[in-house]
């Protein structure tokens, strides 16, 4: 029997059946009770008809990774019921739609059939709405079983359906019916249970998906041109951004927009528009996923070489080609690092949390403008589309860094011949730029992706060409020094025998794994979370300090490990990959198991 507030609740339904609201009510009620929890949507690439699941994980210590095994299953879908049942842990509880007849199929779980089809007739006279309302009946049943606070359940529902009074009444009646039915028919107490913690562990916290968080970060970083082409799982970022911009970025005096959202004809156009806008001086951004990144390659190579700022959010999904659009991965790392032909390199930021999605979205604009280059925010489906608890986002206090832009008066001071686009005046590799439209007759330059020298002139002269690309390489080193250091968690004062590297959302499985290794296996491990590429020196130091190294990442080929090997002057020895590439976020036990195997086979 799991301890209170430590469980996985899984709901298996049919895509398009409207279960999302019901599942969110459960999650939010739990959240309101002060129990640390998060929710993941495991959904098909389909509008309606295929199986879909929602998983809630609660844990008193607030672990956010996915966990294998289900404690409480709600089985509503005939197509997935058998598979869903198999995932339930011994001693677990199943609530199923009566016709599925799951009782007795497993002797080690308690399965309760609920006549949802009959019950819904009682509360919902409108046949059209029954398919939706039936979901709220399981909310009532599960709420009662788990011991959710009824007041919080009702409050969560009311808040979700704010302004929709009629729907609220109907849904509340359905919840109530399920609640009463469970009281009358189901044994109490349930082995999977919730207890209100002595202290509200969610006090002041928010619950949000990473796409909305990144969108909000962009809004508060002053994004003014957003160009995009919809693609799962980045679509909700565009939608959220358009919503927030419409709300918070209209001129108070005139009501006019201080932003533009451009829906492009494809990703080439989307990034082209962002580049045109960035070139002209706007804070410009696009968001996409792997297939879009592939299309953007040529133009982003241009932006690297011609030094055009823009922000690209890559909400990564699984696989080569179309792959699995609704499954998560960290599989674009290598591709983005050198996206486009020639000696192209791009900086990447790796947010692990919704809070970092917010702050790093802002940082990306400052970096793009400071270093006059595309900057990639490498999110993923798990972060972007799932709901994560967080401390409220801090208001950005740092002023916007608009980089080295010469204005009309600066140009006048420098005089004729005083400005050349790619000259390294400051020795940091970062040139000065000017914005088209600057009056005064000085400062114009020619932006080209063809070979150019430091004066911005077309050149085929080896020396002129080389001097400029070497300056860009110097700029890269300045950029490196501006990127965040890795976040290192140390087991003790001396380096632990085991070192685990990770980045992005892999963090949650790794942090939980550290405690399991320590508490259950007596293994001390240090962890190094990579926040950005190019790598900070701290990453190399971590590699050198540990003999038994693991790189946990969500791709088949160990992409980050390849980058690490390429970036380190000395051979990186003993770096073992812990790789997950089935489209589901990694869980802590898999990491632990892999480390244990690695320890056993270590010489």
């Amino acid at each position: 029997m799991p301890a209170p507030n430590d469980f996985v609740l899984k709901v298996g339904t049919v895509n398009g059946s409207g279960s999302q609201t019901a599942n969110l009510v459960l999650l939010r009620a739990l959240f309101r009770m002060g129990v640390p929890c998060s929710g993941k949507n495991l959904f098909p690439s389909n509008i309606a008809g295929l199986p879909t699941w929602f998983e809630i994980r609660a844990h008193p210590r607030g672990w956010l990774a996915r966990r294998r095994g289900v404690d409480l299953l709600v089985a509503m879908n005939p197509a997935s019921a058998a598979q869903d049942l198999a995932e339930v842990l011994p001693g677990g509880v199943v609530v199923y739609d009566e016709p599925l007849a799951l009782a007795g199929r497993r002797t080690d779980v308690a399965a309760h059939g609920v006549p949802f089809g009959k019950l819904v007739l009682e509360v919902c006279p409108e046949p059209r709405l029954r398919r939706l309302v039936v979901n709220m009946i399981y909310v009532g049943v599960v709420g009662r079983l788990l011991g959710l606070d009824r007041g919080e359940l009702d409050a969560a529902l009311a808040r979700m359906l704010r302004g929709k009074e009629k729907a609220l009444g109907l849904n509340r009646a359905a919840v109530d019916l399920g609640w009463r039915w469970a009281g009358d028919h189901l044994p109490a107490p349930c082995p999977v249970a919730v207890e209100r913690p002595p202290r509200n562990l969610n006090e002041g916290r928010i619950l949000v998906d990473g796409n909305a968080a990144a969108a909000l970060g962009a809004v508060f970083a002053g994004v003014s041109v957003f160009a995009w082409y919809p693609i799962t799982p980045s679509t909700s970022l565009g939608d959220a951004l358009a919503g927030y911009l419409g709300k918070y970025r209209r001129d108070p005096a005139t009501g006019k927009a201080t932003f533009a959202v451009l829906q492009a004809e494809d990703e080439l156009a989307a990034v082209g528009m962002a580049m045109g806008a960035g070139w002209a001086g706007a804070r410009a951004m696009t968001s996409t996923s792997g297939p879009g990144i592939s299309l953007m390659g040529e133009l982003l190579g241009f932006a690297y070489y011609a030094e055009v700022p823009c922000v690209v959010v890559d909400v990564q999904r699984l696989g080569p080609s179309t792959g699995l659009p609704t499954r998560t991965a960290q599989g674009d790392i290598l591709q983005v690092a050198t996206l486009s032909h020639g000696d192209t390199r791009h900086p990447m930021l790796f947010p692990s949390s919704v809070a970092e999605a917010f702050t790093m979205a802002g940082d990306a604009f400052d970096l793009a403008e400071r270093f006059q280059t595309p900057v990639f925010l490498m999110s993923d489906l798990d972060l972007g589309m799932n709901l994560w608890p967080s401390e409220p986002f801090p208001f950005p206090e740092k002023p916007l860094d608009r980089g080295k832009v010469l204005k009309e008066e600066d140009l006048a001071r420098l005089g004729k011949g005083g400005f050349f686009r790619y000259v390294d005046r400051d020795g940091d590799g970062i040139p000065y730029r000017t914005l088209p439209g600057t009056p005064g007759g000085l400062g114009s330059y020619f932006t080209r992706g063809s070979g150019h020298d430091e004066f911005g002139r077309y050149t085929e002269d080896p020396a002129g060409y080389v001097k400029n690309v070497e300056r860009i390489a110097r700029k890269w080193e300045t950029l490196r020094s501006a990127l965040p250091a890795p976040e290192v968690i140390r087991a003790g004062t001396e380096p632990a025998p085991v070192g685990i590297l990770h980045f992005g959302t892999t963090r949650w499985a790794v942090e939980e794994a550290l405690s399991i290794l320590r508490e259950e296996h007596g293994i001390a491990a240090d962890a190094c979370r990579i926040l950005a590429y190019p790598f900070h020196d701290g990453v190399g130091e971590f590699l050198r300090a540990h003999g038994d190294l693991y790189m946990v990442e969500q791709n088949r080929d160990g992409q980050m490990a390849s980058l690490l090997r390429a970036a380190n002057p000395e051979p990186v020895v003993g770096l073992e990959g812990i790789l997950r590439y089935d489209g589901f976020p990694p869980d802590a036990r898999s990491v632990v198991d892999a480390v244990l195997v690695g320890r056993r086979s270590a010489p």
Partner: protein
Amino acid sequence: MTAKVNRIGLPQDAYKGGKSTLCPGCGHDAVTASLIRVLFESGVEPWRLAKMSGIGCSSKTPGYFSSGSWAFNACHGRMPPVATGAVVANRTLLPLGVSGDGDTASIGLGHFVHALRRNVPLCYVVENNGVYGLTKGQFSATADRGAKLRGGEENTFEPVDVCTLALELGCGFVARSFAADKRQLETLLKAALSFPGTSVLDVVSPCVTFNDHEGSTRSYAWGREREHPVVEVGFVPHWEAPEVEIPAGEVREVPLPDGSLVRIRKVEEGFDTADAAGAWRRLREARARGEFLTGLFHLATGRPTFVEGLDLVEEPLALLPEGRLRPPRSALEDALDGLTP
């Protein structure tokens, strides 16, 4: 002797650029020379002009005029989206796109179509020679059926006609000219630069190296022989009060939002520049007959531009200060409240 200056006090030399590296006699150089005169005579502020192009001999030409303007020589076919982003970021810019028939009608056709759909403020000049000059003379998508390459190879495909395409997509300014017809070209360029939305000017601009032979349908000789202007166009800039004198023949006068006036006199009986469908039919017929029609085919104002439709503040987005870009703390508090379960 002091050089003659224009309205804003600049000499014609101010509109020159670097030395052309195109083949001597290339049609594109003729268009460049016309652009220099047009920009000078129109008194365009060089810093407002944004020279946009893709890749090709034609797309190189922004290097050869108005060096006081900013230029963005983008990737092959990608000029329209870059121009779109730039003019959205700074609506005071005057974007002039110079592209080729390959850049526009082959690799960049999708972007061309979508810029037209949106009516992006962009003067779009296609230097159309029927071939890919820069890659040494392959047929482009605008090559006429039956046209022959130097080696005798014949084009068997239907051409993409950027003018009928533009008409189909609701473009309010659709014109064709000939690099050797300086007078018409320059008038059309002036009008096109004054047009508020997307103006399409398809200029037959012979490639003397790869497509100027017998059997070509984009050669100088072919053009000189067959050019048939359907209208005669006059352009009165906004600072010259329109003359009251009524010219002979049937004349249509169209005022543009910047105060200038386009005066269109019919040359071909029945050709109506207000009738897009009629112009489209006439151009299809001309293609079937192997005619080379030039002039302004369609002019219609009033359709909102892409930038107008965005409901933007008046100041360029690119120049908004931090105070107008970052919402206040209260906005973040409001957003966070919406995220509290």
